[in-house]
């Protein structure tokens, strides 16, 4: 049971922060379908920098290195997302197509560059990246859930999640950003620079996706950055819709889907699930099927930002 809860937390963290990223972009008015691609790209750059750091022995403290690499991944995700914001905001292109293009571009870049520079199709971090994991096997059960086989990324993500949630609701810039997603013309009429706000929202979104991407490969995917991240980005998007574009909803959605998503890979180590005799594929399907059911129930009372996906046109009032 403790094991399952530990795994749930590990799976929840990336979903939580990437879903919040999706929210930032959509609340500012840009549909960010490229979360998946931004995660892949962030994870790729993160894995490369972790490799270089480990080989050069830059950091003696692994936790410090983990945090630095998370920041690097966030920065690379933000830079990658500029491709999307440029086409969606500046050129008023179709945001769905732009996002899809980025989702195809990221894996191609990973494969092409990994082959060109490292002679393999994916980047594997050296084995001593295992130093990321925090171990406290002797703690009490409750402490074990949070502090044994745990990762510092989970706590970084929770802190960032809380700070940004407060920021978007309580600060002036945050409120302006949300206004741009609801009624950009009204926001513009009181002097808000809609383009700037949308660039900001999409860039934060890309940064969070990049961070989540590296957190995912460092904690879940055995430190391997490859051309696929198994639909995590899209799952995060679904969690955002499930959470009705609000941080609290996203928090519970991420917990639920983190739990569902972790069953497939770990059911073999949990006795009562193993005894059911169902194949892994069944457990893999559950989160996706639950998304469909949940969307069908919740879509009617949607808190979807009114202006998302519509390029801002100054002349339209």
């Amino acid at each position, binding site marked *: 049971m403790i094991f399952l809860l530990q795994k749930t937390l590990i799976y929840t963290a990336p979903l939580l922060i990437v879903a919040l990223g999706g929210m930032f972009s959509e609340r500012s008015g840009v549909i960010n*379908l490229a979360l998946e691609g931004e995660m892949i790209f962030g994870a790729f750059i993160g894995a490369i920098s972790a490799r270089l750091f480990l080989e050069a022995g830059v950091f003696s403290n692994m936790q410090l290195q983990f945090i630095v690499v998370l920041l690097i991944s966030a920065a690379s995700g933000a830079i990658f997302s500029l*491709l999307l914001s440029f*086409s969606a905001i500046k*050129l*008023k*292109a*179709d945001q*769905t*197509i*732009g996002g*899809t*293009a*980025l989702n*195809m*571009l990221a*894996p*191609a*870049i990973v*494969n*092409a*560059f990994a*082959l*060109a*520079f490292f002679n393999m199709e994916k980047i594997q971090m050296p084995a001593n990246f295992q130093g990321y994991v925090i171990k406290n096997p002797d703690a009490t059960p409750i402490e074990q859930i949070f502090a044994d086989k745990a990762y510092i990324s989970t706590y970084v993500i929770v802190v960032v999640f809380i700070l940004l949630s407060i920021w978007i609701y309580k600060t002036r810039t945050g409120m302006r950003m949300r206004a741009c997603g609801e009624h950009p013309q009204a926001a513009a009429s009181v002097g808000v620079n809609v383009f700037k706000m949308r660039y900001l929202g999409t860039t934060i979104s890309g940064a969070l996706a990049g961070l989540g991407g590296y957190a995912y490969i460092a904690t879940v995917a055995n430190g391997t950055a490859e051309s*696929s991240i*198994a*639909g995590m980005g*899209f799952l995060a*998007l*679904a969690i955002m*819709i499930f959470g009705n574009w609000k941080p609290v909803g996203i928090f519970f959605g991420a917990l639920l889907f983190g739990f569902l998503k972790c069953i497939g890979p770990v059911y073999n180590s949990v006795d009562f699930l193993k005894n059911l005799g169902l*194949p892994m*594929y*069944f457990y*893999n*399907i559950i989160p*996706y*099927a639950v*998304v*469909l059911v949940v*969307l*069908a129930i919740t*879509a*009617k009372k*949607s808190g979807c930002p009114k202006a998302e996906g519509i390029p801002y046109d100054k002349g339209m009032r």
Partner: protein
Amino acid sequence: MNMSGFMKKEGVKSVISSVLCILAGVLLGFIIMVLLALFNDRTSIGDAVKGLGILLAGPFSSGNAAYIVTNVGDMIFYSTPLIMTGLSVAIAYKTGLFNIGAAGQFYMGTLAALMIALNADTNGSPAMGFLVWLAALLTAMLAGMIWGAIPGFFKAVFNVNEVIVCIMTNWISANIVTWIFTNTPDLINRSAGKSGYLITTAVTGNGTPKLGLDQVFKGSYIDMGILVAIALAIVIYVILTKTTFGYELRACGSNKYGARCAGMNEKRNIIVSMAIAGGLAAIGGALYYLNPGIELKFDTAYSQLPSYGFNGIPVALLGSNNPIAVIFVGIFIRFLSLGGDHLTSAGYNKYISDIIVALIIYFAGFSMFFKGFITKLARKKEKAAEEAAKAAVQKPSVEGEKTGAKADEAAPEKALTEGKEAETK
């Protein structure tokens, strides 16, 4: 017809903007190759130029004539599933839907087709083989239609974004494929050195008929699948442009509310359109894996989606969602990736062509921008032509106009000299 009028035509504009997208994508791909050459000891700038040549030559980049014939045959074969998924994305797009679920529908078609074809051993009876093949193809279509109707249903009834539903159904179908085939031990190829592959229709004798095409393109995989794809493209074209039903689909795509006001059942149209899209993508999967030479690696299918599903998107976009154009674009995209496969001879890897295809989609996103640019260009030319015509008419009669024009021409010089005078003062 004069040039500017020609350029104003919608179809011509689409073609030009597609060509611009492709050129921009290839150019950026070339820049990436140059950058790779600069930062990597294995390749030089010369290799980048060579790589560009290989990319642009596609199947012809091989020097040997026999290889070229085989390569062209393979290019046509591998473009068949692309054309099908391209048609799938295109018809959904015409109805205002983004079918990113072609990958899952492709898998469902593969699953249904192989379950029928590989379970029926018809070796020795070509007639039975053909019937089983037909049954497999039709079952695949049906399976794909049902699978494709799911996102349509969610969109029409619950108003859920079809993109999310498509992605979810993609991953569900990928897991279903591996799940089902791990439980069919008779269909698994257990010959030495094979792991995770299914047997092919070469064993059961009900592959897609070749119709002698394999004699024309010796040594290639080509079969009559391409003819099926072309026929279906024509059928879709006729449905979309010549029938009431097709008109309704397009009406829903251009304005959902308008279509509803005109008495059309837009919900039904959304579901039917997605079902057709699903059927087309599924036929793509079936035609690909019913070829006797293609084997399905089923054991890892659950963890990766078929690239054919996603590459249908650039095919549809570059073809402006026109079914006939989709045929040519499908072959073109395969042409590019075939060039990519040969890139190793210049020291690059095949994924460069994936980058280029992704960039082309990226540029296709702002094809509206390109189109606007072309319209502007056409207008400019038109204006210039008009002025030239005016000048030609007025030349012999009005002397004053001419001097006026001359005066205008001289004006900047005058201003300049005046400025100089002012300076000297």
